[in-house]
């Protein structure tokens, strides 16, 4: 549907995008995720036709779009601040694209009302944008874009101006809308939850480059580098050195002073320094109290046993975070779920604990050059 081939964009010699290649499938919901200034909006503007590539090409429906102005592209954009025309009613805003295409009057009326129904704004057609709430303005912006039946809808941080609850609701509605319409959606966001909740695939970007492309689950569970791992969600990064290869994809390593077993698809050599990445919810912890000093971790996580002391506990409702400092000083964040049977916390600050994780849940990354 949309293909970017070796796209490079420079502003006054400063690279904003470097050699981006990406194919977006028909009907896909793709997110461009990254911090501000990573080039994600520039990428969107290149597809929309508001910028031209310095090098490379943007293909829409297999056709090179170089030199094709925005008004002649089968894409529409939902702008970050909606960019609704303040001097027009909601109806006129939504009808704008169809009028520019010189569609017959009754067809326009039917299409506009249909689009307003779709975003649940019937009855608002005569209002001005200034008379609408932020969420309603957002819906007008979406209706104004989809009424033209674009092949691709570009969304530039469309929900960033909404409050948390409304944002969650709009995420669901957008996803629903995309399924109903079958249009390819390309969403720019810096919010990982938003990208994960809606997208089929996520493109993680940094400094004008693509770090990783994958399903939300792949991005979260198999980050390809430390940057991606740290950008999406909380993560603990442990330092380790490979000791021995004990089987296919199975190694022993010294991690934070403890010998553990590691699983990795990557070829690792002996004495190689590595990072071991673990999400807070990957850990399990067991308290070593005076009565049962040798209370053991369950079998599946017995291959690793980091010793430490509970420092602080943060309550989050369904879960609680435990901050543990290991004997060598490294701090680790562990997320525990409340036990089904009891509503008490399993540990208190000052407790000595043993930490382990399910075998194979760790991500092992060699040091990057």
């Amino acid at each position, binding site marked *: 549907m949309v293909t970017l081939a070796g796209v490079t964009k420079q502003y006054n010699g400063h690279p904003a995008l470097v050699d981006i290649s990406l194919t977006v499938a028909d009907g896909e919901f793709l997110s461009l995720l990254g911090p501000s200034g990573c080039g994600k909006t520039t990428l969107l503007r290149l597809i929309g036709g508001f910028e031209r590539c310095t090098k490379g090409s943007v293909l829409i429906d297999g056709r090179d779009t170089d030199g094709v102005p925005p008004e002649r592209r089968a894409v529409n954009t939902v702008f970050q601040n909606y*960019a609704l025309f303040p*001097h027009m009613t909601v109806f006129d805003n939504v009808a704008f694209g169809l009028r520019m295409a010189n569609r017959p009057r009754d067809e326009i009326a039917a299409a506009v009302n249909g689009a307003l129904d779709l975003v649940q704004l019937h009855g608002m057609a005569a209002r001005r944008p200034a008379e609408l709430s932020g969420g309603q303005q957002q819906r007008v912006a979406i209706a104004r874009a989809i009424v033209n039946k674009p092949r691709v809808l570009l969304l530039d941080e469309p929900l960033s101006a909404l409050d948390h609850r409304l944002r969650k609701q709009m995420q669901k509605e957008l996803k629903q809308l995309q399924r109903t319409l079958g249009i390819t959606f390309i969403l720019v966001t810096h919010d990982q939850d938003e990208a994960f909740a809606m997208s089929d695939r996520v493109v993680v970007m940094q400094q004008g480059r693509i770090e990783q492309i994958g399903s939300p689950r792949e991005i979260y569970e198999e980050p390809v580098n430390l940057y991606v791992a740290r950008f999406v969600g909380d993560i603990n990064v442990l330092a380790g050195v490979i000791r021995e290869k004990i089987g296919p994809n199975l190694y022993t390593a010294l991690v934070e002073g403890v010998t553990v077993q590691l699983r990795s698809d990557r070829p690792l050599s002996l004495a190689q320094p590595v990072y071991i990445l673990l999400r807070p919810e990957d850990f399990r912890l067991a308290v070593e109290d005076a009565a049962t000093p040798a209370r053991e971790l369950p079998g599946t996580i017995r291959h690793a046993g980091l010793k430490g002391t509970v420092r602080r506990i943060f309550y989050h409702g369904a879960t609680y975070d435990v901050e543990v400092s290991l004997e060598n000083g490294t701090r680790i964040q562990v997320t525990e779920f409340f036990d089904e049977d009891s509503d008490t916390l399993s540990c208190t600050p000052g407790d000595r604990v043993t930490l382990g994780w399910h075998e194979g849940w760790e991500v092992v990354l060699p040091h990057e050059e």
Partner: protein
Amino acid sequence: MKNNTLFRRLLIGATWAWMALLALVPYLMLVGASFFERGTDTLVRPGLTLSNYLHLLSPTVFTMAADSVALAAVAALLCLLVGYPFAAILAHAPARIQPLLLLLVMIPFWTNSLIRTYALVMLLKADGVVNSLLLHAGLIAEPLRLMYTPVAVFIGLVYTLLPFMILPLYAALKTVDPQLLEAGRDLGAGRVRNFLHITVPLTMPGIIAGTMLVFLPALGMFYIADILGGARTMLVGNYIRDQFLVFRDIPTGSAASVTMTVAMGLLLVLHHLARRRSGKEMLP
């Protein structure tokens, strides 16, 4: 803080006093004189009469008023046509050089407009700069007749009043969110339709303000028509000046003056009402 308010009061008080003494009081005298009768020895004779105003209800005065309105309207239209592209270039120029360009727009204000009108004579007369240049360039065989034509009057009016058009247009254009134009193009409007459907409606307050700021002074700018047009057509401004300085008919001059002020005031009130209405609709 207390000093500040005292200082402020002094400043504002001085301004008010100045305005009252030199604008309001003379104007009230003018209003009073418009109801007086013309005296033989003295300039005016106290009394209460509407004859000065009835005097104005003559075909000649109507023709003159219509001519003035037409002239001012054409001048305003020309200023709009010249000023809009200029203001657009100004508003879209790099932020660094905008103050410089604005300064260039304002510099002419530093010289009295009467003097600048005489300077225009030097440019436009038969052996003036424009004709000399065109002759030397071989574009014309004999000098163009520019002076004492309507063309010269419009050149003078546009030259003098253009900044009053450019500044409000510039201010209006600066407030148009560039993203709205991108949205327009995204929705299929080319540059021309974008301009007509988005830029023009959004800058309408500036267009109206600029038109008023050019139209109203143009009604009264008698000296430009005099100097560059050779006083062939009588305009409201010339008429009022002549009543005072030539015929010494102060009551009639005052009545004409007051009538014109009231007419302008009405226009301003209309403008204000229109702006308030559109302002309500155009809140962000």
